[in-house]
């Protein structure tokens, strides 16, 4: 109903544009060519003015609901804080956040570093644990997907190990690696490997049989099958696995760092709890959430770039 209001100017401008294009694309009509740029220019102006209000409306509808959502969160938070149970109010926390983010990269020894350093060292651990998990998990997923024997061999192991809580792995890491940092990385590794193994394997098993029939008729070598058929067909599944794995890794790192200490966002949360600095804890929660959000969004963007229409269907 709303869009109907804009129909007539839009239609008119489309017609004008079409006329201009027709004039441009017909080489035989030489005299028309001279008039074409002028017609085109006059057509562009109404398009802009006609579309502008419509776009504002769409933008409005896109922005208002999320803003309302965040407002609701802040409202609930303010209500809880007003009960006087030690939770700082949103305004206080915001003020504190400004001080913290004005100098995110200071360093006063290992126990007092800026939030930037904390986030970066957490990300570094995630990158290492997750990177190793990808290096092992993706090829393993390919093998499990490709060979039924291996699938039957590994499936019970995966089913057994996957549901184990990340923190249960931490003592094993501490025991084997004799250090907090490698133990945290180990925990990330062991928790983020499963989504990649499982998704890659499922992707390989779900490669359309048509594509495999093409490979069989052409009698392609195993290398060609992997590079030209399996890998591109599995890529979207694999990237889903990667996305889930990064999400898990980011969840795990905070818990692991709380226990292992050192520099990192999880340790920072625990440290601020020991200082009874609740404002910083809330800021840390927001930072953790935003970093997770950014990681997720970046990987979704990556996944859509590598997904072909026909695979999605």
């Amino acid at each position, binding site marked *: 109903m709303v869009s109907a209001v804009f129909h007539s100017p839009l239609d008119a401008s489309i017609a004008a544009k079409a006329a201009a294009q027709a004039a441009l694309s017909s080489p035989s009509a030489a005299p028309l060519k001279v008039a074409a740029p002028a017609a085109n220019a006059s057509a562009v102006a109404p398009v802009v003015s006609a579309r502008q209000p419509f776009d504002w409306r769409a933008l409005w509808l896109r922005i208002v609901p999320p803003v309302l959502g965040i407002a609701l969160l802040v409202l609930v938070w303010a209500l809880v804080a007003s009960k006087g149970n030690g939770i700082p109010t949103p305004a206080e926390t915001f003020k504190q956040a400004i001080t913290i983010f004005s100098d995110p990269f200071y360093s006063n020894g290992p126990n007092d570093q800026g939030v930037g350093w904390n986030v970066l060292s957490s990300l570094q651990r995630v990158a290492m644990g997750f990177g190793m998990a990808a290096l092992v998990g993706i090829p393993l997923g390919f093998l499990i997907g490709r060979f039924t024997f291996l699938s039957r061999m590994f499936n019970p192991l995966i089913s057994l190990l996957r549901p184990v809580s990340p923190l249960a792995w931490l003592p094993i890491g501490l025991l084997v690696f004799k250090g907090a940092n490698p133990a945290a990385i180990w925990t990330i590794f062991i928790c983020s490997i499963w989504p990649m193994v499982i998704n890659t394997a499922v992707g390989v098993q779900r490669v359309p049989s048509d594509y495999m*029939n093409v490979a*069989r*008729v052409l*009698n392609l070598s195993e290398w060609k099958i992997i590079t030209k058929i399996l890998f591109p067909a599995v890529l979207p599944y694999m990237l889903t696995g990667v996305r889930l794995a990064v999400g898990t890794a980011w969840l795990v790192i905070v818990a692991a760092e709380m226990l292992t200490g050192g520099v990192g966002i999880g340790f920072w949360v625990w440290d601020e709890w020991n200082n009874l600095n609740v404002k910083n804890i809330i800021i840390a929660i927001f930072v953790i959430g935003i970093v997770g959000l950014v990681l997720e969004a970046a990987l979704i963007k990556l996944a859509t770039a590598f997904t*072909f229409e026909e*695979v999605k269907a």
Partner: protein
Amino acid sequence: MNDHLTSKYIAISGVEQTFKTAKGPFVALRDINLSVAKGEFVTLIGHSGCGKSTLLNLIAGLTTPTQGTLLCANREIAGPGPERAVVFQNHSLLPWLTCFENVYLAVERVFGASGRVNGMPAENKAQLRARTDAALALVGLTPAAQKRPGEISGGMKQRVGIARALSMEPKVLLMDEPFGALDALTRAKLQDELLDIVARTHSTVVMVTHDVDEAVLLSDRIVMLTNGPAATIGEVLTVNLPRPRSRVTLAEDPQYLQARKGVIDFLYTRQSHVEKLAA
């Protein structure tokens, strides 16, 4: 090449195909005996579910028969191979490769370093590219060579599939309802193109179809299958129409109409109880 081999280029004898299902064995095909001569165009026709595609897959080597033997050029068909190229029902192009790359994959396999093992020298990249270009030109798709399958129409995709199959210079061209998913006009155009290409390349073709007109227009012989389960060859009709054939002049040709009536009689009078069986 001796006469025996020429008249029995593909020899199918006593073939039976049984599938294991949850409800026990299902006999799809039984007692299939058929030979296809070199350069012959044979269509397999029958109601859906009668095992046409099963038979084609057996010739392709994608499945192995439970009983009986299939020979191609006097050698047992042990598995799929590029000498028996398949045009799939749903084109089966790889969506992440351009049309050119889809065809090149096949050309490279057959004529490149990995293909030529018995004496023939491997061709270099320029020759392989030339072959690919030629195959795409054959189906009139040179302008779409650099497009991906998602960017072209269904008819064009099917043509790329045909180009891929033809580019391999197969001994036998196997087509599984290649035009089934297309609209009538596109289908007619591709049928004419196929007639033209086959006349030039003298390919041996086995094609599955459920379209009576398509079968009569294209075939030298029409193999009609009875209804499944346990389908077998009910009748073989030889189409003696002279080539080149034109759909326009054939439309009123008595011989064409007679052949068409023969197929329709078989499909709708003698084998019409398909719904009853399914119920």
